[in-house]
């Protein structure tokens, strides 16, 4: 194999080495991702102000169109564009390796751009207000499906370029030993992405043919297979944002994983069991058996929940160990008090970890319980839950990472650093609030994807309790605050690219510097108390467990008061 002519830039601020093609690809994917976040955020204004009962801003048809676009642009386009950027970063940059087949990688990028635009054009023409789920037999325009198909093919290409880059790195010996944990996590995300995108192809291609009048698709088969795309795509996010948590723990605090074995096994459990979660969406459906529901909805005995609970401990645990080694050893929580709360990369990730666990994780398990699902299915509790996982978990983590990438990757000094410091708090906490009140409204039964909870003009209107109206008004307020937080993020990041002071790019060289192993550190068993290296984190984990147990059984209690069903 002939050597490929390229250059490697060593960033003077981080020591990271960027290969020229990979750097441009990462920038392009991340930038287009942020553009989708901007569009999705503007659409969020329409959604939030319409669901606020006293405002009800948009007309019904516009609302359903805007909601369809908001879902697709945020859940699919923003996140997957950013994730492909992360894949290229975790392979090429972290392994100091040239990217495999850069031309094909650009083809993938082009397909993703064309597909996402085509899909949005279809939605905004008005004939495709079918929601992100596009359940058949409700039909969108053919180009709606074609857009998703092209986008998925592009994203698949991105995944295979990532795999190829790992192979190149191994063959050209750019690193010693095993791949780093963060790259390992990204590999998990990529494997899950392949499963997800292939499932998507299996059902969106038939739906596209159906929209052209060439075949019909069974509604239940559609739902079953579609969720292998719909839910699994959120599992790519989990694997990706957990990898970024480890990444940020390493770059912000110099933390090393508590044990490679536990963290990597936890990622492996994701590959094996996380996908089963598609069943969560079919628990209230006819035609799927009880055993199937129980096995799948529990990710086979909750082994993927186990994995998340492990990451939830080991990421802050690694931070604690690193902080204790720096001398912050007083009491249980000095390490946490003395953490760099003014660094938005760190604060964003920490707010994300806590919110993802307490708000997203606990509620996810609750609603994924076969019987408990009856009290939340299709209520606004569901978007309450997934805004905690996808927005607090994934989006906030990606935002935090961007603050790190602006000087390192984009070589710009960040404008308005004070504003950036506050952004994770404003965005994160208003999102916490937003999710909580949405779940409150959902517990009272309020429907998701619904234009008018007052049912004006309906002869048999149902009157929701006053508390439900109050909750929905608070959803409006929390949502607008979060949108303001999102706007600040867009202003700081895009503004820094446009007006930020250019920073020194660092030296370029035609050769990479091989990546050595981490230097061994003394076993950290001496730190902490009672033989525990991270006692503070352990206490926090127990608090989490108590909250989890209480909330879980409160819902069983609630369920037990309902009509008998068998």
């Amino acid at each position: 194999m002939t050597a490929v002519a390229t250059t490697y830039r060593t960033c003077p601020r981080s020591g990271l080495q960027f290969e020229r093609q990979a750097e441009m690809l990462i920038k392009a994917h991340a930038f287009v991702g942020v553009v989708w976040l901007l569009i999705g955020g503007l659409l969020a204004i329409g959604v939030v102000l319409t669901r606020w009962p006293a405002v009800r801003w948009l007309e019904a048809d516009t609302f359903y169109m805007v909601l369809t676009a908001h879902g697709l642009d945020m859940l699919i386009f923003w996140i997957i564009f950013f994730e492909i950027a992360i894949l290229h970063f975790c392979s090429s940059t972290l392994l100091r390796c040239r990217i495999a087949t850069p031309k094909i990688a650009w083809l993938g990028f082009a397909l993703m751009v064309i597909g996402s635009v085509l899909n949005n054009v279809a939605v905004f023409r008005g004939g495709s207000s079918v929601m992100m789920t596009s359940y058949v037999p409700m039909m969108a325009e053919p180009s709606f499906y074609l857009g998703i198909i092209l986008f998925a093919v592009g994203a698949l290409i991105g995944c295979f370029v990532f795999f190829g880059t790992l192979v190149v790195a191994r063959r050209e010996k750019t690193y010693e030993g095993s791949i780093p944990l963060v790259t390992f996590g990204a590999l998990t995300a990529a494997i899950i992405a392949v499963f997800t995108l292939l499932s998507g192809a299996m059902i969106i291609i038939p739906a596209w043919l159906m929209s052209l009048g060439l075949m019909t698709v069974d509604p239940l088969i559609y739902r079953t297979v579609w969720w292998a795309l719909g839910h699994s795509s959120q599992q790519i996010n989990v694997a990706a944002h957990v990898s970024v948590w480890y990444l940020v723990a390493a770059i912000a605090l110099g933390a090393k994983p508590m044990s490679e074995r536990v963290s990597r096994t936890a990622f492996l459990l994701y590959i094996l069991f996380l996908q089963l979660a598609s069943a969560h969406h079919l628990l209230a459906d006819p035609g799927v058996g009880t055993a199937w529901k129980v096995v799948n909805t529990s990710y086979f005995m909750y082994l993927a929940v186990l994995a998340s609970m492990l990451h939830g401990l080991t990421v802050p645990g690694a931070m604690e160990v690193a902080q204790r080694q720096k001398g912050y050893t007083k009491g249980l929580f000095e390490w946490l008090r003395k953490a760099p709360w003014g660094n938005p990369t760190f604060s964003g990730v920490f707010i994300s970890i806590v919110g993802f666990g307490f708000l997203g994780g606990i509620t996810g398990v609750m609603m994924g319980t076969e019987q408990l699902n009856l009290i939340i299915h299709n209520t606004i509790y569901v978007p309450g839950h997934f805004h905690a996982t996808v927005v607090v978990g994934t989006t906030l983590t990606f935002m935090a990472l961007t603050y790190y990438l602006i000087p390192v990757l984009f070589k710009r000094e960040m404008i308005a650093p004070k504003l950036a410091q506050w952004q994770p708090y404003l965005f994160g906490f208003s999102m916490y609030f937003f999710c909580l009140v949405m779940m409150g409204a959902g517990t009272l039964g309020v429907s998701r994807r619904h234009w008018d909870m007052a049912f004006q003009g309906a002869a048999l209107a149902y009157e929701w309790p006053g508390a439900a109206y109050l909750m929905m008004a608070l959803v409006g307020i929390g949502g607008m605050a979060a949108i303001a937080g999102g706007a600040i993020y867009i202003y700081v990041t895009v503004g820094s690219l446009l007006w930020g002071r250019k920073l020194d790019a660092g030296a370029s060289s035609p050769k990479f510097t091989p990546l050595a192993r981490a230097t061994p550190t003394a076993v950290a068993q001496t730190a902490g108390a009672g033989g525990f290296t991270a006692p503070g984190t352990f206490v926090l984990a127990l608090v989490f467990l108590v909250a989890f147990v209480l909330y879980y059984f409160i819902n069983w209690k609630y369920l037990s008061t309902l009509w008998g069903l068998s």
Partner: protein
Amino acid sequence: MSAILPPSERLWYKHPIDRVEGTWLAIALVWCLILFFMMVGWHIWGKQNLSTETYRTKPEQFMAKTQAMVDKYTVRTETDEKIPVVAPPAGSDVYLLGRLWAFWPILELEKDKTYRLHITAMDYNHGLSLQPANINIQLVPGFEHVVTVTPNQSGTYGLVCNEYCGIGHHRMVSRLYVK
């Protein structure tokens, strides 16, 4: 910075597990098993388990059965559209359908009596959301789902469609009476 560097030990998987992690792993595993067996246990001891009895159906076929029940047990009609209110005998098979954009007919059931409730969607997916009890079941076209229900409180319930079904979705709301 070792999370972004190759592990320092070649055989990293032989590194002993830290005590914090080991303890948490054990606790979390026990909790996961409890979560799992709660679902199984509720099928044995719990009273709220969604039936999985399902048949393939066609709109005209389901309509015929529903019409037969309506013809036999209608007690009155409601609203300008004269939606029949049907009071079938306890223990019988009762039918309820969702279509664009209404539920049909209105059922009147008796408290603490058990019914075999047959539900389906005639066109698109719909959602059956019984309020304020907050029981939510998906209606999928082509599938007749038979759910055995035992109302435990009398009153007027709202039936809200909570699966998006097009531009009239937010007007798809009906009632169910329990005496």
